């Protein structure tokens, strides 16, 4: 019995230490971001890989998410003769929840996994050691620019997702199912307030941080062996999805 309790204690200590290391990793990424030299070109490069290269998948998922919301919203609201509220329902759902969460999922799958794999591969092939040996801090060179790029790219991608999703719902609800265009936009205008937009914006910024933080941490701390790359990639994607959902609930409950 005492050995079982001991094992639980050891596990708890290890997990707490790992959590502490994760936060220290993030802290050092911010500290190194503030120190010269400013890695402006690297930040722009990572904005391209996180933002621009995720654009197509975000637009595609946004359009279809909007279209299915248009269909489902119309189907549900028609039962109460409330089809005119379709614009309002779609906009609130997209702006507050689906926009930030689904675009974060897309970025995790598209870029986060690649980020974790790239850094893990650099670890396995001693490229990170090579940076240390050249007196270049790898956190400053590899992690800080990615975190900053994530913070900048994620809200922009979410905004694009929101716009195309609302348009997707418009196409299905108004063009195909005959909801009045005026009531679609008027409902939206009446129900959406600044707080809804702010909530989506803050969520997307925090998701950008979560994705780059977790994926960089997992890649950076991969086991130095071939299987370490795959393991780091899988763990980072799963952890990102879980963290995004948990953090989303927390933020929703705070910002309602």
């Amino acid at each position, binding site marked *: 019995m005492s050995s079982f309790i001991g094992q639980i204690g050891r596990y708890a200590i290890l997990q707490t230490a790992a959590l502490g290391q994760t936060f220290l990793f993030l802290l050092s990424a911010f500290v190194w971001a503030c120190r010269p030299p400013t890695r402006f070109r690297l930040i722009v490069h990572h904005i391209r890989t996180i933002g621009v290269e995720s654009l197509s998948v975000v637009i595609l998922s946004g359009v279809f998410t909007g279209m299915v919301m248009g269909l489902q919203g119309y189907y549900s609201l028609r039962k109460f003769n409330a089809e005119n509220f379709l614009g309002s329902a779609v906009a609130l759902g997209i702006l507050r929840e689906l926009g930030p969460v689904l675009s974060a999922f897309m970025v995790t799958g598209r870029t986060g996994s690649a980020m974790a794999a790239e850094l893990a*591969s650099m670890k396995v092939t*001693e*490229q990170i*050691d*090579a940076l240390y*040996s050249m*007196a270049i*801090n790898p956190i400053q060179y590899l992690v800080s620019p990615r975190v900053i790029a994530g913070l900048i790219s994620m809200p922009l991608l979410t905004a694009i997702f929101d716009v195309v999703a609302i348009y997707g719902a418009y196409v299905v609800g108004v063009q195909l199912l005959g909801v009045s265009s005026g009531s679609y936009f008027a409902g939206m205008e009446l129900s959406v307030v600044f707080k809804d937009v702010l909530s989506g914006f803050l969520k997307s910024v925090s998701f950008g941080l979560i994705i780059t933080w977790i994926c960089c941490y997992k890649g950076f701390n991969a086991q130095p062996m071939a299987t370490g790359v795959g393991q780091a990639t899988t763990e980072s994607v799963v952890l990102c999805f879980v963290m995004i959902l948990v953090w989303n609930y927390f933020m929703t409950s705070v910002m309602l």
Partner: protein
Amino acid sequence: MIRVVDLQKSFGGQQVLKGINLELETGKITTIIGGSGSGKTVLLKHLNALLRPDRGSVWVDGTDIVKLGERALNEIRRKFGVLFQGAALLDSMTLYENVAFPLREKTRLKEPEIEKKVESSLAQVDLSGMGYKYPAEVSGGMKKRAGLARALVTEPEIILFDEPTTGLDPLLGKSIHQLIRKLHNEFKFTGVIVSHDIPEVFKISDRIAMLANGVIVEAGTTEEFMASQDPLVRQFLQADTEGPLAVL
């Protein structure tokens, strides 16, 4: 001069280095030999503080680098060049960019000067005109040579070579050894080579040390080492599976 004093290092409860004492003379090439998994690379990575020991010290030109913070350590690291086992070239950059990288990051040289130095370094390792290629597009030997060019380009006082010929055919291995010797004659750096490519590596070494069972069992000039009667050294040199040295 690099001096290693009572260096100890464990990984997950397994003690790899059990108290290493070793002196690496300035301007000489010292080769550390030992069986696979004996801790040679672990020892090498302590010399420029890529790994921190559990106990002991590493003195580089009179400074114990184990006690140094990040900033002071970076100053010491500028004295070093490292050729990693797999060359560790940054895959997102061309060979030219890889060689130029430490100059762009750590010096205030203008681009024309950088270009001159990089072209010269690439020429020294017979890679003239190959700078536009990415590491994935070249052979293992070319990667090693590009790694050597990167290690040399900042004209470091000390160069660490981690198994420079592993994975190369004998001819290519010999050419890398000859290149190291040629560059050493030219630049007079302090070289530390980790290798089990014997006896080939002896031809370019001034001194040899052997690591076994977590300690240095023999160290001396190449001639002294070859004449050693230590049973571990004899067994290793004769590649004898019977003897005090554990063979897996």
